[in-house]
């Protein structure tokens, strides 16, 4: 086949409609750097390896199962958890009654990082971004009335994966459910934690061993259980474009496979239980193509290990719509965004899906917003007839071209990572993190210039934002409740048995025993999540991240109109001339939340704009941040908060600053802070609050204005 016979005629027609402008001006370079034309034809598909294949068959581009949704639709699996186990359990029961099919548990940040609720470092985090779990007693409450032999349960846990998975297994035992009956997924994807989300506990090496131990325990005891969910979602949320998400996720997968093979397992015993987790954003066709490309690439990568079982090279995935794409402004628009993204995941052929609630940029989902989110999927499944045909976009000139382009681009990065010695080594080198941060900074710059449109944020903004729906907040009493329960457990358990079990676990950590197996007796004896984590930390140590920050990417993406950023640069220079130094700002992230995208983008962009920016280590307490602000003698502290800790952590920071004489240091706050909390923060002494979506030139302008008023007038 060659050029369409009428193509030149079409070109003529099109150019006439363009009134003299060249057709090339309609080309679009995507954030991934892929060139997209306004029209695709059959010619584009010539010699394409990934086109015209069949579902359920290699290379699985069109789906891992032969019948896909025509046989059975994807699983509606909503991720939820907040406050206490009791509250979350009640929420699960309601959701299951209303059509949800699988459970997916969100844990709070203290649990993720292996701290019990009574630990002083985590006072601001208990029950906020997920449910607080301190012991198997909490686990039992969480799954009360939910038969674990029938319900597939997915758990997002990576750091404290040993005590949590052991807790789930023991809770099932005490329901009378055998290990082999358990089905579900544990995220257990530690590599991406070092890359983006930072909810790790131990250094990479022992963490990789934990993963191998879990794979090995489950392959012999829990054959229906997915031992890992290799996740690109958090990379996308951190700013990775779709090619980066695909490449890094597949590369992570390859690294896990190599680790398992190295520990002596046979490929076909564990590879069929590897599952994936992709994030789906607003780039509609791109992310459909991404899922198809990922299946192709995984099959290609796995073929290198010569599996006998076809399931070993079949990519099965869960998807979630992008939380980052949700806006605090005009929030009902989020229903539409989530619907688009859900459709993209479905047309890409996902095996299960979480759809976000429209209020998630503001607070925790309520019964109302959770219902709309769930119904988004039910309506696609039951009302639209989309499920009737397998891979309905297969063969589309455009989509197949995009699929092939992603395959090619991602493969280049995968090869690059192989050259560095695999993903673990690549992460050590800092390469993937830098790429993601660069991609995030560029995206921010496009949004701030209005090149990427976000309705309600940089186009058609509302004059008056009004919240006319209920907002769920986690009461501070959750922490007290948890602490009371820890006390009670510790006073009623057989302490000698706990001590022995923890000592045995430590021995296993030092020697070579299976850590999951060794943790089960400790959980049965009512050792807490914190105690079990500590026992292993005593041997492994706690990992400390190296924070590096890119510079230059933000301002270099400013191509169209540089007036806003030039204005700020001039003013920071003027500040220098009058004050003898540049405006100096400490950007800090307190509490256990490890999402550092906003914090990094701000640091890097402000430096580009002429600020001297100090960045604090992750996971700081307010007192530690205050010490740093004083020593570095900054003019202003920017506190980033994404996980609902702002109401306690930020006022505490202001207090700590006062205690050591830093009352003149200005404090501003940014991140996911619901509008109804602004006044509370202003009263506490915060001088400016920047909600999600605030363009950086705007926040920098306002911050600088505060400094100018104070120092230059």
């Amino acid at each position, binding site marked *: 086949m060659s050029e369409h016979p009428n193509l030149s005629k079409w070109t003529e027609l099109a150019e006439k409609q363009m009134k003299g402008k060249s057709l090339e001006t309609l080309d679009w370079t995507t954030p991934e750097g892929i060139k997209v034309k306004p029209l695709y034809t059959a010619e584009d598909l010539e010699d394409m390896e990934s086109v015209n294949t069949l579902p359920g068959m290699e290379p699985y581009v069109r789906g891992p199962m032969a019948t896909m949704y025509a046989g059975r639709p994807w699983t509606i699996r909503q991720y939820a958890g907040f406050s206490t186990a009791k509250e979350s359990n009640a929420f699960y029961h309601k959701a299951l009654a209303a059509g949800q099919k699988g459970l997916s548990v969100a844990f709070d940040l203290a649990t993720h990082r292996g701290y019990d609720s009574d630990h002083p470092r985590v006072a601001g985090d208990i029950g906020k971004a997920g449910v607080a779990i301190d012991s198997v007693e909490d686990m039992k409450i969480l799954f009360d009335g939910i038969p674990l032999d029938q319900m597939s349960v997915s758990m997002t846990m990576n750091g404290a994966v040993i005590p949590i998975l052991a807790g789930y297994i023991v809770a099932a035992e005490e329901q009378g459910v055998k290990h082999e009956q358990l089905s579900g997924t544990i995220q257990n994807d530690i590599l991406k934690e070092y890359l983006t989300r930072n909810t790790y506990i131990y250094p990479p090496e022992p963490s990789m061993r934990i993963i191998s131990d879990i794979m090995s325990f489950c392959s012999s005891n829990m054959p229906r259980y997915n031992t890992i969910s290799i996740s690109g979602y958090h990379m996308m949320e951190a700013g990775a474009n779709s090619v980066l998400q695909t490449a890094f996720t597949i590369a992570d997968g390859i690294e896990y496979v190599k680790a398992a093979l190295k520990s002596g397992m046979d490929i076909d015993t564990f590879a069929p239980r590897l599952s994936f987790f992709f994030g789906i954003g607003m780039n509609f066709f791109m992310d459909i193509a991404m899922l198809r490309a990922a299946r192709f690439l995984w099959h290609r990568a796995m073929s290198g290990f010569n599996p006998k079982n076809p399931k070993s090279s079949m990519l099965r995935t869960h998807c979630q719509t992008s939380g980052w794409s949700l806006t605090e402004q005009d929030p009902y628009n989020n229903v539409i965004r989530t619907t688009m993204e859900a459709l993209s995941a479905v047309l890409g052929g996902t095996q299960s899906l979480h759809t976000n609630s429209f209020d998630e940029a503001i607070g925790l989902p309520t019964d109302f917003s959770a219902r709309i989110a769930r119904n988004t999927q039910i309506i696609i499944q039951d009302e639209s007839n989309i499920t009737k045909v397998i891979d309905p976009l297969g063969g589309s000139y455009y989509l197949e071209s995009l699929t092939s382009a992603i395959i090619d681009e991602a493969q280049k990065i995968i090869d690059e990572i192989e050259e560095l010695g695999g993903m673990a080594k690549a992460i050590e080198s800092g390469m993937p993190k830098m790429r993601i941060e660069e991609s995030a900074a560029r995206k921010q710059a496009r949004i701030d210039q209005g090149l990427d449109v976000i309705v309600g944020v940089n186009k058609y903004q509302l004059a008056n934002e009004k919240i006319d729906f209920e907002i769920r907040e986690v009461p501070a009493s959750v922490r007290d409740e948890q602490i009371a329960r820890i006390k009670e457990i510790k006073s009623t358990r057989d302490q000698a048995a706990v001590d022995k079990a923890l000592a045995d676990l430590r021995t296993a950590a030092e020697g070579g025993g299976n850590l999951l197996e060794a943790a089960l007796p400790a959980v049965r004896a009512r050792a807490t999540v914190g105690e079990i984590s500590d026992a292993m930390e005593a041997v492994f140590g706690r990992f*400390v*991240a*190296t*924070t*590096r*920050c890119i*510079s*230059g990417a933000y*301002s270099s993406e400013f191509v169209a109109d540089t007036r806003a950023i030039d204005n700020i*640069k001039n003013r*920071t*220079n003027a500040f*220098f001339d009058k*004050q*003898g*130094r*540049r405006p100096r700002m400490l950007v800090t992230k307190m509490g256990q939340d490890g999402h550092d995208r906003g914090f990094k983008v701000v*640091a*890097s962009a*402000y*430096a*580009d*704009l*002429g*600020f*001297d*920016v*100090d*960045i*604090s*280590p*992750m996971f*700081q307490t307010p007192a*530690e941040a205050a*010490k*740093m602000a*004083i*020593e*570095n*003698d900054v003019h202003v502290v920017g506190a980033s908060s994404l996980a609902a800790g702002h109401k306690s952590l930020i006022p505490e920071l202001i207090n700590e600053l006062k205690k*050591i*004489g*830093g009352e003149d240091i200005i404090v501003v706050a940014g991140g996911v802070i619901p509008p109804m909390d602004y006044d509370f923060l202003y009263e506490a002494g915060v001088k400016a609050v920047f909600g999600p979506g605030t363009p950086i030139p705007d926040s920098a302008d306002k911050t600088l204005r505060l400094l100018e008023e104070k*120092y230059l007038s």
Partner: protein
Amino acid sequence: MLKSAEVYVDGVKNGNRLMLARTITLIESALPAHQELAREIVDRLLPETGKGVRLGITGVPGAGKSTFIESFGTMLTGLGHKVAVLAIDPSSSRSGGSILGDKTRMEKLAINPDAFIRPSPSGGTLGGVGRKTRETMLVCEAAGYDVVIIETVGVGQSETTVASMVDFFLVLMIAGAGDELQGIKKGVLEVADTIVINKADGDNIQRAEIARKEYETALHMLMPASPNWSPRVLTCSSTQSTGIDTIWNTVLDHRNKLTQCGEMAFKRKEQALEWMSFLLDEGLRAWFYNNPEIKKLLPTLKHDVENRNTSPTAAADLLLKILTQ
């Protein structure tokens, strides 16, 4: 908003963290009024200085300087020392702003009550780094920090400036792929009191040992800068905290040896004099070039010399005479 020198002096003497930090800001400031106040403060604090150990650390980017200081400094506070760290960050982008991330790699030390860490954008000139860092070091000593560590990246010239203000200069290296001596300037080795091969852990231990031997050989071929001290080559792992105590013992050994024979006192005097003559040179140049009449005459005379209308000697004479009038 400026307070009197008194307030700063008392604050620093009392070890007040805030006042120490604000004094450093004055020292670093580009404003003449701030600099003047800073000079007065430093002068009045001078009697309180001089008792500490002054350490300079350099190495290529990523050698592990900050990680080393985290481990080293934590050990020192454990021994009862108070540690100040001055991190000079040479990076500044086109706009002039910079990202100061040193504390993210000194997480434990950053929250240690016996430690004070101050990252500084180097911003201005080389002389600037010299002046600011030297004075900052002095006020840290006056505030009771008995070990002052200066971290500087081993590119450019800041490391020789730093070497000329410390008692002990440590060069941190990593074992590379063979050509060890590439990438690091010979000049740096000449001023090193000890070379440490960092990251001697995991599969890297052997390579570090090989590199250690290579550096030892290389050092043998150089004339030691001091007759009383032959530079050593050691290995350590900053992440595992191994070999760190040996380095501190080496610093103490160096200190004992040089103190006993009087070289330490001599070195400090020498450094002070060198610094004074550097400042004199700088001052004279500034004085000369800022003279309005010279500013006016200089371009014409340059032109004349170029076109051989005047001899260089005559032109220089003429200009210098203006100053003495």
